[in-house]
């Protein structure tokens, strides 16, 4: 019987290696797999490259991992935002590398990695400093930049419903980068609020089919949110 459910956080994060590229879902505070991210501290992996839309906020989740000195490099679209204090300190001190990618290019590079497309042309960024040194081509009278797929070793995502085959749904704006990153990594680990019986998720409604998911950790919602 296929059962991708794991019982402990240790099992969920087992085998993640130093130097890994970690895709971290979420946008703003919504859909961030904070338990998985923070638990990487105990898991111990170092020298990580993190791909996420934001460079963390406050001192939780990704910011906490960065503060623990585990992140060598971050690839994101919006490093500076309200509360990105940990990132800013590290960046000023030269302790973290940064690659800025336009948000849609970031999403498409991840999608390309999941879809077996190694590179694609996009109009985004043409003529700007983010396209410096990138290949440019005129197609149909317009100029485009060549961008590369961005695969991960691991994706950490937050789901709403999950089943033992690994099918996932998300909640409202929590779908964001989660559903894209789930396709783009060798090992996709989901923390889910609800773990349901096989067949309980309507096949028309599955957002991430189980083929993309390797491990599921169930993390029930706090009571005040589960209403």
């Amino acid at each position, binding site marked *: 019987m296929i059962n991708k459910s794991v019982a402990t956080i240790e099992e969920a994060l087992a085998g993640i290696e130093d130097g890994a590229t970690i895709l971290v879902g979420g946008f703003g505070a919504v859909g961030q797999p904070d338990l998985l991210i923070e638990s990487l501290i105990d898991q111990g992996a170092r020298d990580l490259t993190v791909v996420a839309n934001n460079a963390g906020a406050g001192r939780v989740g990704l910011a906490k991992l960065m503060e623990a000195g585990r992140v060598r490099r971050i690839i994101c679209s919006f490093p500076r935002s309200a509360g990105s204090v940990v990132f800013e300190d590290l960046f000023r001190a030269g302790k973290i590398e940064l690659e800025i990618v336009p*948000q849609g*290019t970031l999403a498409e590079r991840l*999608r390309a990695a999941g879809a077996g497309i190694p590179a694609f042309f996009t109009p985004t960024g043409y003529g700007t*400093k983010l396209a410096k040194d990138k290949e440019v081509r005129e197609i149909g009278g317009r100029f485009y930049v060549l961008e590369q797929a961005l695969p991960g070793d691991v994706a950490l995502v937050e789901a709403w419903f999950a089943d033992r085959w690994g099918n996932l749904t998300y909640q409202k704006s929590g779908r964001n980068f989660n559903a894209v990153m789930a396709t783009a990594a060798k090992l996709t680990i989901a923390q889910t609020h609800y773990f349901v019986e096989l067949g309980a998720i309507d096949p028309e409604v599955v957002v991430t089919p189980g083929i993309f998911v390797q491990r599921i950790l169930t993390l029930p919602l706090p009571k005040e949110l589960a209403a």
Partner: protein
Amino acid sequence: MSAAGWSRREMAARVAAEIPEGWYVNLGIGIPTLIADAIPDDREVVLHSENGLLGMGPAPEKGQEDPWLINAGKQHVTLHKGGAFFHHADSFAMIRGGHIDLCVLGAYEVASNGDLANWAISEADAAPAVGGAMDLAAGAKRVWVMTEHTTRDGAPKLVEQCRYPLTALGVVSRICTNLAVIDVTPAGFVLRDKHQDISIEDLRRLTGASLLAAETVHV
């Protein structure tokens, strides 16, 4: 010139008045967000948010916030009937694919050839936050800009050539400032409308590129 011109709400109302029913519109973070409230209640305009929403509604009442429903500016929002959720790659496929009728963005500078600079305050800034600005600017069918006419120091934001790092080339087609509404045409900036308290001469003095008068300008 002494007038502060239109208030931000008045600017939003002017832009909103030009958006026809049925358009799919993305409102940039900051001042453009005000446009949402200025759209007449009887006109259906479908708002898009980069983080995976179409049919975005107004802010919820205090205490009614849904923790899983935010917009690209990370503010709590609601969803209209007929709305839809989708993921980031699909969301930017809508943007890049030219399906968004209009995007209204803020700006540091707009050049008379339509170049837009709105994401980084200097070439030397090593960690600027681009977000979805470049995708929106390059992808939407129309890009309008909503901004103060000058910087706080009184320097023009409408210029011959942008000095700030560019967001996209030749994309802006209309600008609404506190002082004027200006079209960006192959001939350069064309004045469509201006605040009654400012003279054309003063407006030209506050504009860093030549400003053609259109016949339709109300004076």
